[in-house]
């Protein structure tokens, strides 16, 4: 990674964020029928990120200690545990499985 590459990567990320805000966001706010996408997009996209971080290893799928940590997190979220409890429990569960 060079200075030029950092500039190119940053430009691509900035442009996408601004396009989303000024183009996509305006379209959604002017189309009541599409307004609900504002809450549905994070549900779908963030869940995909969670899946990727939990079971992906490059382009292969792997069930390992991370899945146990996320199972613990899932139960705690379902039981409405505080945010910090969820995060710490996931780390502890994952670390414990790796120790075994």
């Amino acid at each position, binding site marked *: 990674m060079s200075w030029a590459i950092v500039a190119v990567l940053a430009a691509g*990320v900035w442009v996408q964020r601004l396009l989303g805000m000024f183009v996509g966001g305006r379209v959604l706010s002017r189309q009541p029928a599409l307004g609900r996408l504002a809450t549905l997009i994070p549900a779908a996209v963030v869940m995909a990120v969670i899946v990727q971080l939990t079971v992906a290893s490059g382009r292969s799928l792997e069930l390992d200690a991370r899945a146990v940590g996320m199972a613990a997190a899932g139960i705690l979220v379902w039981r409405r545990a505080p945010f910090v409890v969820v995060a710490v429990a996931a780390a502890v569960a994952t670390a414990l499985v790796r120790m075994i």
Partner: protein
Amino acid sequence: MPVMADSSAMDATTSTGDHAASGPRWGDLGALCLTFFSLGVTVNVLVLDRVGSESLTIVAAVAINSATTELAYLAVRDAGGTQLAAVIAGWVVASRFGLLAVSLGARLRVGTWHRAAAGLQSFDPNVTWAIQQRQPRDVVRVFWRATAAMHLGWLSGIAVGVFLGNVIGDAQRFGLDAVFPAALLAIIGNLLRRRSGALAAAVGGGLCLLLIPITPAGVPIIASLVGAVVALATMPEETL
């Protein structure tokens, strides 16, 4: 169902309270700060190891403002990919921030410069918390509070990762790599309690799972957008 001018605001509230009514509590913001601190440490230890320059690592972390982009770029280079392929992978994985900016943009009632600043700071936690607020001023307040908590953690994480990285040791041994996805799950927890949100997440997550082995990095995340469209199309009136 009561008729409201802003149907997305109605949809964004939940019957459970939690973050929906008053936004994240100080404890939640502290936990978010710690989450981004651990992310900042783990990511920047990795980046510094590859680029070998403290100043470049710090500038990359702050300017690109997307850990996933940095990791995707490095992963493709490590696998022997060209600069062009690595840059494209970095851009594609950042597309989720563009999608989150769409969500935030739909709920934000502020001027152009404020919109631009908020757009450039669109991340998963701050957008997800903000769009669950009913009042436009609460959307703005919650967004910037969460953004401040994230950056406090991210910037201090960069500093520790870059200057003290070698004393932290193997972050995976402590399960720190599980903190970020767990935190994300807690943040979308309220959205999952509604049938439309649960359907969007199930379709989006399931599609991502199917596509990970057969498509390039980033594509499974973009494809998850289909989950939101399916939920919109099949549950148009749900308000819960």
